[in-house]
Every structure is written in C-alpha cells, then in structure tokens.
C-alpha cells in the first residue's frame, strides 16, 4: 500500500473515531503505526527488528538505535523530543492497555508523522563501484585476468586518498548535523560511512540484477571471457601433461631420450598458449 493511500485511510479513521469518540482505537493504531515505522527505519539502517517477544519497548529500541549510531557516526537518528514522547506515552499505554488520554494520542500521531518524514538510507544497499574505483562490470572479467593484479594495485594506491576524502566529508557533515538536523545531510553522512566501510572491507559481492541474464549488459560483457577459459583450459591441459611426463622421467630415468622430446613439445605448446593468452588480455585491456 502506498504512503499516500495509507495517509488518506488514516485520516479517514481519525475522522470517524473522533465522531464515535473511540480514542482507544486511535491510540492502538498510533502505537502500531509508530512501531511499524520504527522497525522499518531500524531494518533499513541495518539494525534488527524490535524484539517484542523479549519485552523490548519502543523506547528501548529507539535508544539502542541512537546509541549505536552515536558510537559509529556520532549522530542520533531520533531526536530527544521524539524519545521523550515515547518515554512519556508508552508506559501509560501499556498499563492502561490502550486507554490513554487524547493529548498522548496526538503526541503519538505527531511522532508517527515525524518518523514518516525521516528519510533513512538503505544500509543493505551495495555501494556502486562505478563512482569509486572504476567499472564493476569490467572488474567481473578479472577472475583469471593478468591485469587483475595491476588493477588491484591501482585501486590500492587510490584507496588511502579516497578514504581520507570520505573521512573529511563525513566529519564536516557530522559537525553540521550537530548544529541542525537535516535529513539530506544525515543520509549523505550514512552513505559516506557505508562507502568508507565498503572500501575498508573490500568485500566481493555478486552483481545484482533483475530479469533474465540474456538481457543484461554486464552478462554480455562477461561472455567475452569464455574464449579466455578455452585458452586457460588448453594451458592447464598441456602443463598437466608436461608434469605427467616429468613425473614419468623420475620413474624411468633410463627413458630420458624418448621422453625429453615429448616434454619439449608439450612445454613448447604450453609456452605458446601462455603467450597467446597474454596477447589476448592486452587486447582486452585496450
């Protein structure tokens, strides 16, 4: 259900409950909606859902999230005012099982709408590499690639510079956020932190796509490497045969004359194939 539709329905419910004076229903709805919104916020930020079964209150959940973000980013997700509202309303709601005064319900709905406005970035989302260290699709091709090491080396050279820049931006953002909360700056701050973590961890993940592979451009680029696999297969085969013959020489040293011809031919072919492989990759890099 879209946010707009939910909002219209909620307004309709508030209206009708006003008419019927059913504050209890409004109280319950306000708490459920706020709880759902908090779970959504928490999960989007990479946190677990509220542990209702263990008796974790909304207040506990909000303060835990705030503590974690204070520790990591020196930022608070929820304002002191919001936490104060929950600290005040939640115990009364729990004790009276929904029978709370209208001023608390109003506070809860205000809190819910504030939570809806809180735009939090998805910390599960992978940070695209394109903007950082080159094309991800091209990195895919580097599984057996000879230039993999070089690319890695380049990336290693850039990493400290990138990290320094990100840390600087992150600090600047945090200072600004301490003075005044701005959802956009907050989002930027979390993204910077996520980018920093991604670079530091250098984690390898798959390319996430939607729909059949045959329509995917990364896949079509990746197909090119199947020729390389063919070449690698041949290299593997000739080197294996060469090693078998060397082993045979150790078994039967008296057959050196016969076997040396075979070993020269086989290692010669594997050398030629390795040469072709290098040429092939130089072409790909260009």
């Amino acid at each position: 259900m879209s946010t707009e539709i939910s909002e219209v329905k909620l307004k309709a419910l508030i209206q009708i409950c006003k008419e019927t004076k059913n504050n209890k229903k409004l109280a319950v709805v306000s708490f459920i909606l706020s709880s759902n919104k908090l779970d959504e916020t928490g999960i989007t930020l990479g946190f677990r859902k509220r542990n209702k079964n263990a008796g974790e209150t909304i207040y506990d959940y909000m303060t835990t999230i705030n503590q974690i973000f204070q520790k990591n980013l020196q930022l608070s997700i929820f304002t002191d005012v919001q936490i104060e509202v929950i600290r005040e309303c939640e115990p009364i709601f729990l004790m009276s099982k929904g029978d709370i005064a209208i001023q608390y319900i109003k506070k809860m709905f205000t809190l819910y709408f504030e939570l809806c406005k809180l735009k939090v970035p998805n910390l599960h989302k992978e940070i695209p590499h394109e903007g950082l260290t080159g094309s991800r699709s091209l990195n895919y091709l580097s599984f057996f690639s000879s230039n993999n090491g070089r690319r890695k080396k380049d990336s290693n050279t850039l990493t400290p510079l990138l990290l320094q820049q990100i840390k600087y931006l992150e600090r600047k953002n945090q200072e600004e956020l301490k003075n005044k909360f701005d959802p956009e700056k907050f989002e930027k701050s979390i993204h910077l932190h996520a980018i920093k973590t991604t670079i530091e961890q250098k984690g390898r993940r798959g390319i996430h796509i939607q729909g059949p592979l045959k329509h995917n451009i990364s896949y079509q680029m990746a197909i090119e490497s199947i020729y390389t696999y063919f070449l690698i297969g041949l290299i593997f085969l000739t080197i294996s045969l060469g090693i078998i013959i060397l082993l045979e020489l150790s078994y039967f040293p008296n057959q050196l004359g016969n076997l040396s011809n075979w070993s020269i031919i086989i290692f010669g072919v594997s050398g030629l194939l390795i040469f072709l492989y290098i040429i092939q990759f130089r072409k790909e890099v260009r």
Partner: protein
Amino acid sequence: MNIKGVHIFKFSFLIGLILLFLSVFVEWYSYQIFTLEQELIVSWKYNIFWEWSSIFSDSPLNEALRPENLSISVPLNIIFLCFLFLSGYVILFKDIERVDSIIKYRPYSYVLGITLILNIFYVVVFPVMYLFPQELYFPFIQIVDYEQDFMYLYSIDIGYVLQLIAFMLIFPFPIHYFRTIYTFDNEKNNPETYLKNKIQDAQEPLDLDKLIAQEELKFQNSDRTIQEDDLNEIINLFIEGDS
C-alpha cells in the same frame, strides 16, 4: 561476442560429453610387441571397464606377457557415467540465460564442475597412478630390444585421446556457468528483496479498511461488543508480541 557465441561453447560441451561417454567403452592404452621383421606377436589393449583384452586369444607368448590389471574403480566409472548424463540434462534443460532467478541453478553448476573434475582425474591420474607403477610408458614410446629381437610399443589409445579432446571441448562452459551463477546471483542476496522481506516480517498487521468499516458500523449504531473484542485482540497482540 554475442550470446550466440556462448551456444558454440555449449555445443562443444555437448560434443565433449558424447566423446567422454564413448571413451569409456573403447581402449585407453595399448601394449604391443613386434619382431624386428614388423610381425605383431603380442597385443594387449586396456579398457577401464573390462581391463586387458587381446586379439591373440590362444598364444602362450601373448598370455605370458600380459600386463597386470590396473583395477580402476568400477563404481567411480559408473559415477562418471551418471555425471555425464546429469551434465547432458543440465546443458539441455537448465539454461541460465532465460531464467529470472539463477540462484536455484547453483546445484547444476556443481554437476558440471564435478564432471570436469572427473575428466581431469582420468586425464591426470590414469598415467600417474595406474600406468607408471606397472612400467607402462606414456604417451607413445617405442623401445627396440636387439638382444631378443623385439620391438616394444607402448601408447595411449583412442579412449584416452578422446578424454583429452573432450577436456578441451568441455572446459570453458562449466567455468562460464559456475562464474555466471556466482557473479549474477540475483535473488537470495539481493539487498532490496532481502530488506523488503525483513520489513514485511517485522510489521504488525494493521487493516485500516477493517478498522474504518467497524467505526462506520458503530457510527450507525451496530453491534459494539464485537468491535471491542476485535480491538482488544489487536491490543493484546501488539503489547504481548507473537508468543
């Protein structure tokens, strides 16, 4: 190279499978002795299922010079044949390019991988573990013994050659299949889907339409007690959790 290019390697993989299948039923190694006048006096051919066989069934010299059995594990050969059929099934009916969710295709990539590993096993292990201990040379060796006027010919045979050719034909496709599945896993590890499911699991059910309808009924002086019971149930569920 477009997607059609992959089909060439897919086809070569199929040809490779056929060659591997045929290789199991033909001779892998040949051991022959000739006189210096080029007369064949001893001939033994090796097959991985029925060991050594000869065209000279009643020659005492031929029998006397019979090499020892190599004893390649028959269950392993049967497993190899099973994987050949499974790989054929995967290649014909489990096309990763046309599906939306390739994550389910991971087990098939293992099937292709195991077939390739078994092929490598036969190519590498057969000479090292089975031929050399029996003093059978690899790949082709001709030894002339002038004292006995014999010429010994040791050589790999069509079965082993088919294994080598098949290796070249099949190697690229399993690697491509495996790499594609592990690089383009598009469902299980998709953060968007994962997040959406997690949020959905965490949400307390709240049917606003139902609540509105109940209030409207109440507004029209309908049965109030049922609605109160419903509301109490929702409250209890919310406060006490799922347990």
